[in-house]
């Protein structure tokens, strides 16, 4: 009797206790959440604000300044919100590409053998990243773009016209014929027209994010040991060739995770579009909220949309990160 193993009581069993603790914590968490949600629903019902999505199907009856998909005021709210989403994605995608190109160029320039270029890169980064983005956007829009002349006085380059009402670019018109901007009755017409709001927002986002990306790229390049440069040089490679084929591929491992968070900030910062009158998702949502008064629903949609956009960017960048990592053989 005394020689047999005593069973360990369950409250001291290493296999049982963690489960019990987890269950209790889970239960408490569930209780708190259900209490909050229950209270939320009760109070919302009391205030007559219980979530309802029927308004999404009603006609929006407002116009938008620019849209990539067909839209008019008789279409429903969901379509208007979609227009806003597409406009947001448009500025985010173009912004990501532009900021990456600019940031990489400036990041590489800070290692250039040309002293002037190196210093210019430093000045750009220090000036841009130390001024709030909202101020920069207002500056680009109100001070730079709205000061541009209109009509015949607009700046004209071959295939490009920059005026107060927008940016006009040459592009393929009907029948794949190359067509440049032309002045019709004092108004510029071109196959590809970017509104001045879009251009100002894009310029602001690209220069702002570009400065941060430049720093990420600079940090990545600096992390590559000096010996790699020397090895490349001893092989007879030119500066640009050693940068392109030896240093940058190795630097990518450090750069990509840093880029991820810069991309996410750019996507979130695009919501400042309303400051310069660009119709992005936030701008359309605000008008929708103004018309319907459905504050919670509109904000939930907004929060959800930006969350999904950022998670998607993150997922793509994590995939890219896997690609550039050293693969164990």
């Amino acid at each position, binding site marked *: 009797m005394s020689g047999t193993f005593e069973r360990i009581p369950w409250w001291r069993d290493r296999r049982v206790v963690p489960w019990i603790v987890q269950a209790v914590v889970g239960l408490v968490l569930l209780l708190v959440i259900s209490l909050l949600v229950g209270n939320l629903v009760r109070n919302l019902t009391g205030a007559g604000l219980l979530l309802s999505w029927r308004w999404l199907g009603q006609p929006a009856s407002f116009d938008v300044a620019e849209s990539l998909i067909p839209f008019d005021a008789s279409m429903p709210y969901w379509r208007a919100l979609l227009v806003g989403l597409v406009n947001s994605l448009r500025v985010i995608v173009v912004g990501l590409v532009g900021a990456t190109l600019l940031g990489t160029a400036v990041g590489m320039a800070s290692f250039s053998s040309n002293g002037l270029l190196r210093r210019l890169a430093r000045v750009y980064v220090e000036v841009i990243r130390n001024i709030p983005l909202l101020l920069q956007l207002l500056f680009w829009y109100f001070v730079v773009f709205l000061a541009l002349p209109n009509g015949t006085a607009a700046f004209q380059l071959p295939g490009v016209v920059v005026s107060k009402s927008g940016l006009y670019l040459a592009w393929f018109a009907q029948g794949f014929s190359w067509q440049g901007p032309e002045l019709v009755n004092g108004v510029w017409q071109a196959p590809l027209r970017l509104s001045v709001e879009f251009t100002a927002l894009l310029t602001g986002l690209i220069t702002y994010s570009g400065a941060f990306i430049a720093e990420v790229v600079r940090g990545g390049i600096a992390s590559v040991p000096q010996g790699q440069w020397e090895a490349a040089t001893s092989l007879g490679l030119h500066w640009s060739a050693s940068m392109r084929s030896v240093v940058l591929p190795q630097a990518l491992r450090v750069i990509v995770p840093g880029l991820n968070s810069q991309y996410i900030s750019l996507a979130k910062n695009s919501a400042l579009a309303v400051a310069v009158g660009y119709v992005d998702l936030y701008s359309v949502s605000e008008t929708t909220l*103004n018309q319907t008064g459905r504050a919670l629903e509109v904000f939930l949609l907004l929060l959800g949309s930006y969350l999904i956009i950022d998670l998607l960017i993150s997922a793509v960048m994590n995939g890219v990160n896997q690609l550039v990592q050293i693969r164990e053989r």
Partner: protein
Amino acid sequence: MQPSPRWLLALPLLLAFALGGCADDSGSGGGVQSVKLSTIRGRGKLVCGVDGKLPGFSFLGPDGTYSGLDADTCRAVAAAVLGDPAKVEFRDLNSSERFAALASGEVDMLARNTTMTLSRDSAGGNGISFGPTTFYDGQGVMVPVASGATTLQDLDGKPICVESGTTTELNLADRMREQGISYTPLKFQTGDQTYAAYLGGRCVAVTSDRSQLAAKRSSFPNPDQHTLLPVVMSKEPLTPASVNGDPAWADAMRWTVFALFQAEELGITKANVAAKVAEAKANTNQADLRRFLGVEGDFGKQLGLPADFVPKTIAAVGNYGEIFERNVGTGSPLKLERAENRLWTEGGLIYSPPFR
């Protein structure tokens, strides 16, 4: 870089509903029960949501004080509830923030050139409670004189600047659609940005309440170069508001504003209110005046306000006519006519129900 801080407004709104208990349990026993009134008294000041950048209505001057018709409405309510017009904390709100700020309890009331509409009033819409209209306005369109535009049709195919989150944004869309005029709406979040874009020449016209256009024009570098089109696109009754669900507080605010109208009708001014009170006290036959000034009866108590809330209010800000003249009338930089905003006895729309 933070996203726009207005996002954060949704958070207190959600939290307030998620964490807020049942408000009606905590009223003080006896008399008028109002959470808001006791909150304001406990705090010792009224938090009033205003525009803050609109000359004549609510404008933060270089000396750090607010002036304007809306600002004086806040002061009148503070004088009625707390006995002191200085006990107001003004909170600048833009058009999109205002209702969320009111619903979440960040401000006690709005006097922010806000148009009363069905969807803003109804429980299924914004769910706010409107008081009496303090300024009857209409939507107008301002264009540069040099543009030569005289009707809405002249604006066909052109960009028009408008502040987002306003009724004017919605009226613009409706009127243009009715008349089949195509246009590009350029929406900005604040009045400052809207008028900056207009002055920068990005749009050929800017639309808003006519009083607001006149007010903003008065602060332009060259006011003479801009003109209002004769068209009036909508009715814009600008009305102070409080949150739904506290009727006693809404009543207190409503009747304080009515008292301003009634005082003008009775000829009681900031200057003579003390004499009128003395007259009412001496003359027991003037029952109407005695009741209005709180010498007799318990109107104050019925509203949860001090018995002498009317004389206190008038002594602080004057009657409605005085407030109008001081801030937006012909003697002010805005030079607006009384027009619809005359007393009903003179053919206007300003009318107080009886104090009875």
